């Protein structure tokens, strides 16, 4: 049964991610008084791109051709180690804890940066340099966020964190947890290139960061890259909701019904998270590039204050 649930969990991420992104962009269009594309548009995009062959520059090496598969595999790996539909570890969850998961995400970012540099296109180099610079600022804040939840659960395993918060709901209003949650949400926005950092709806060449790294890709390679980035948004939002905000409503590792029931519950939680993202996307302007460091500094600071206030909690 755990194996079936393991497969079901990864399938949920694979199938749910395009729908989640489609729903967010539809909601943003509605907020902007437009009709917007259907929520199923990402599936159509994927189907179209997967049918097409990829055109690869004759200057590109195997790094360029292999990168989409590595990136896709990285996000698929993360999908088996974090609590998405069950609150108990599934067979492959031993692979990594949250910091290990951050390493896997780091590997994906590294591979994308290599692939962007490989064809020597100016746009790719620009995107890779910017994204790597941002990544170097995100990591310390992310580690501190893990510390804030680690203080409550004495662990950096996402399942144990989920249990710790679930068994004492009082933890939800502790300053440490509130600050950690706030900082993690800011990092979710940064990691997925949402609005204070980057405009997700259009690719404006001069300000591209995440998109800049994959502009060279086409056809099925591009489909994998897009799908991977949607999975990233889905995964980080799920971790945010399941570990930080609403740790209830997950199935256990032994009943299929519980796992199946957890999927609509997860959809509800993601609707809340998506709503928050839509509100932020529609009400703020994009930051100037060098202000991004201040945004990330603020996330770091909030997480740091969270860790400091834990000094009292743990007494």
């Amino acid at each position: 049964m755990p194996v079936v649930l393991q497969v079901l969990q990864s399938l949920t991420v694979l199938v749910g991610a395009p729908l989640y992104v489609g729903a967010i962009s539809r909601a943003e269009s509605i907020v902007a008084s437009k009709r917007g594309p259907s929520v199923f548009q990402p599936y159509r995009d994927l189907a179209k791109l997967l049918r097409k062959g990829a055109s690869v520059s004759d200057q590109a090496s195997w790094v360029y051709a292999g990168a989409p598969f590595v990136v896709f595999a990285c996000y698929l790996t993360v999908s088996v180690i974090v609590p998405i539909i069950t609150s108990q570890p599934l067979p492959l969850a031993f692979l990594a804890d949250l910091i290990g998961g951050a390493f896997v995400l780091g590997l994906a970012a590294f591979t994308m940066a290599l692939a962007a540099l490989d064809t020597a296109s100016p746009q790719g180099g620009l995107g890779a340099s910017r994204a790597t610079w941002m990544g170097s600022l995100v990591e310390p804040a992310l580690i501190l966020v893990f510390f804030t939840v680690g203080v409550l659960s004495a662990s950096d395993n996402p399942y144990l964190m989920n249990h710790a918060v679930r068994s004492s709901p009082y933890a939800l209003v502790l300053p440490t947890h509130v600050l950690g949650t706030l900082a993690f949400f800011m990092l979710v926005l940064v990691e997925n290139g949402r609005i204070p950092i980057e405009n997700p709806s259009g690719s404006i060449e001069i300000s591209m960061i995440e998109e800049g790294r994959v502009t060279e890709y086409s056809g099925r390679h591009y489909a994998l890259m897009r799908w991977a980035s949607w999975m990233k948004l889905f995964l980080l939002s799920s971790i945010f909701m399941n570990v930080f905000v609403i740790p209830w409503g997950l199935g256990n590792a032994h009943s299929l019904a519980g796992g199946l029931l957890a999927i609509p519950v997860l959809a509800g939680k993601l609707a809340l998270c998506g709503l928050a993202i839509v509100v932020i996307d529609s009400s703020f302007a994009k930051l100037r590039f060098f202000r991004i460091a201040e945004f990330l500094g603020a996330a770091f600071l909030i997480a740091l204050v969270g860790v400091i206030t834990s000094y009292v909690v743990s007494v």
Partner: protein
Amino acid sequence: MQSLSSSSIDGTLLTLSSVGILLAAFACLGSKLFNRYVAYYGFQSVLLSFAAAVVAYHYDSAELWALAVITLALKGIAIPVATQRLLLHRLDLKRDVALSTGLSTSLIVGALLTAFAYLVIEPADLPHGVVAASVVPLSTAVVLLGGLAMVVRRHTVAQLIGWLITENGVFLGAITLVATFPFIVEAGIFLDLVAATLIMVVFVSGITRRLAEATSSELRGLQG
């Protein structure tokens, strides 16, 4: 009279609003626009009056309720509005350029000061489970952050805001530690605050009219 425990609902609300007050101080330290300073200060004062109301509810004391209302009316509404109308609009202040360090540096120093506040208060030594153990270090940090804002900002109006933030930190510590502080003293402090703000308004307006700028960096010219 039993003291506030940190795990009760009142204690949690008080701790959360203290964290909000600290974040507002950080927000003030990390911004560059005068109207933001004032907005964050107003927000901080509203949170402070909420904290005072929580303490008043817990101890069921009419004096503390009065303090909470005065805090909201004076610090939450009157001082921000007066600063906005009388200083920012009249002097056409928009962007604060008279900073002695970059924003990131001052935020990092602010984080270090917060850690320092925890080091000197040593909440682990305070009685177990008392809300003061979590609030007093936070209020000390707010006091230090207000001081830091006065140090890194050279413009007089920005220094005024820093001073007001320091006062908010003192007030937060006071209502948590000694909730039964004589009302007359608190009321006296409020009067001082209003008088000081008015004097600042008058002086800064006057100085600016004379010198076209009111920053303490002008004083460097007086060095022998």
